[in-house]
């Protein structure tokens, strides 16, 4: 983009007969700058004002540390659950034909479409001790609402579509001849699945896992109602940002936000690395 050309002969843009590059490119950069880059830069500026030590101090505050632990730990578990069931659902939806399949397929996107606050109050009322599911769980001695279990449930809800939708197109593209080849070579179905079908899907599963994880860590609306938000127990990092802001502790809010942003970038980077590896190894993303 703005970087100087490596060699003077290499052009920034290949010439093309299609018109409109200047105006569309300029408009894109302007919008991107004002809406996305400038505000994010403000956060980075604020955070660098705190310094690494300042951020570290906030992060090691017991309440903050506990909130970060809850956010990352529970999200990891939830993403794992979403990946396992997501793979199963994607497999069922692409490989089997059964009545209502298209409706089930559409339902998977519900968490994308349903506003998080709506999902939040619905989950809270379902899993409350007197709620439809909460009552049954209570009989089993499981308290869901106002504990990390509730957070976990909300995060699975929000992460599931990512897990399903990253794997599904790849299962669709599996060449059945590969499985038939495996069968003609004497492998039983289980062997074929484990040795032939699943390995090329692993990068997609990992990508789906990373997306669900990142979404879970940042999620706010669907969690706060069911979580109960008890400090040191069921308080999540995004909520703590809101609390710090309401106390006008901008520095604290920025420090937590920076840590979360850092984790999202690491996750993003991991996804890119997975995809680069996949491209080398399997020839596709």
């Amino acid at each position: 983009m703005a970087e100087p050309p490596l060699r003077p002969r290499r052009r920034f843009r290949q010439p093309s007969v299609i018109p409109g590059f200047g105006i569309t490119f300029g408009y894109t950069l302007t919008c991107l700058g004002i809406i996305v880059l400038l505000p994010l830069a403000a956060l980075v500026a604020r955070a660098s004002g705190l310094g690494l030590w300042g951020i570290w101090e906030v992060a090691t505050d017991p309440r903050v540390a506990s909130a970060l632990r809850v956010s990352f730990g529970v999200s990891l578990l939830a993403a794992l659950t979403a990946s396992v069931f997501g793979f199963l659902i994607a497999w069922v939806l692409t490989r089997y034909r059964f009545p209502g399949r298209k409706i089930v397929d559409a339902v998977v996107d519900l968490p994308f479409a349903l506003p998080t606050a709506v999902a939040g109050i619905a989950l809270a009322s379902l899993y409350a001790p007197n709620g439809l599911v909460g009552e049954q769980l209570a009989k089993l001695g499981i308290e869901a609402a106002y504990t990390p279990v509730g957070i976990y449930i909300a995060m699975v809800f929000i992460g599931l579509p990512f897990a399903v939708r990253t794997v599904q197109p790849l299962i669709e593209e599996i060449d059945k001849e590969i499985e038939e080849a495996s069968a003609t070579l004497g492998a039983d179905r289980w062997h074929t699945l484990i040795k032939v079908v699943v390995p090329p899907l692993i990068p997609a599963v990992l990508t789906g896992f990373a997306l669900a994880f990142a979404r879970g860590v940042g999620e706010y609306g669907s969690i706060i109602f069911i979580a109960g938000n008890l400090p040191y127990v069921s308080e999540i990092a995004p909520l703590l940002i809101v609390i710090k802001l309401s106390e006008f502790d901008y520095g604290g809010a920025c420090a937590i936000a920076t840590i979360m942003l850092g984790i999202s970038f690491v996750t993003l980077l991991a996804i890119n690395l997975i995809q680069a590896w996949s491209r080398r190894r399997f020839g596709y993303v």
Partner: protein
Amino acid sequence: MSSASATTQPPARAGSVVTEGFAVRALLIGIAVVFLALFLVLPLVTVFIQAFAKGWSAYLAAFSEVDARSAIRLTLLTAAIAVPFNLVFGIMASWAIAKFEFRGKNLLVTLIDLPFSVSPVVSGLIYVLVFGAQGLLGPWLLEHDIQIIFAVPGIVLATIFVTFPFVARQLIPLMQEQGTAEEEAALTLGASGWHAFRTVTLPNIRWGLLYSVLLCNARAMGEFGAVSVVSGHIRGLTNTLPLHVEILYNEYNFVASFAVASLLAGLALVTLLVKSLLEWRFSAEIAAGARRH
């Protein structure tokens, strides 16, 4: 020799070498359906059950309230600004990115995608840091008596941010897949760039465009975290529908809260329905976004 015909037969045909036995299939389908029913469908159903817990009159009462009406108005206004903005941006960005080859393109695409990987709360926070009283432009705005944070402009900005990539991300792969041959053909026939866009490009992307606008709108109307941070929760002034749901819920006014929530859930259902219809009907024109290369 059953190999060559496998793709034309229903994949679940009993006895095929490329599927599992009937019992295993039934079990897996059962697990998938029960899991989805429990985790996704049940919460949706709950919204409507709770909304109608005290009957129609209680349900309708939730909307006769002045604050509820102003929340509906503000939500519509926000979407009416944010969606067209991102529509224009998405078309511009995907034209520049899909129809031309230039250096740094991948970086540009990554930056456009950035809002998807930022927590909603952080999305709100960054606008507070720019426009808030203690923010970068705070003193200047105060001097000129312009209120952005805890006011409608802040809500609109935060909504634009969280829905920023929707249209662009859908259109870029779609336009890339379609290449430039048809536009070139139009140009050799004497069409101007704008004429070629209107008559050739736009008809080719219209369903993908509608699809992305639909999803963008659902998110714009339903956004909670980011809007919550910049809104200030001033009843009747800076409350959108999702924020109104929260306030009512926290006041233990469950019926009203779920009634308002049911409105948003209805929007989600309509979105899903139209989205699915579009996918079934025009899969080829939409799927490029999801297809892998």
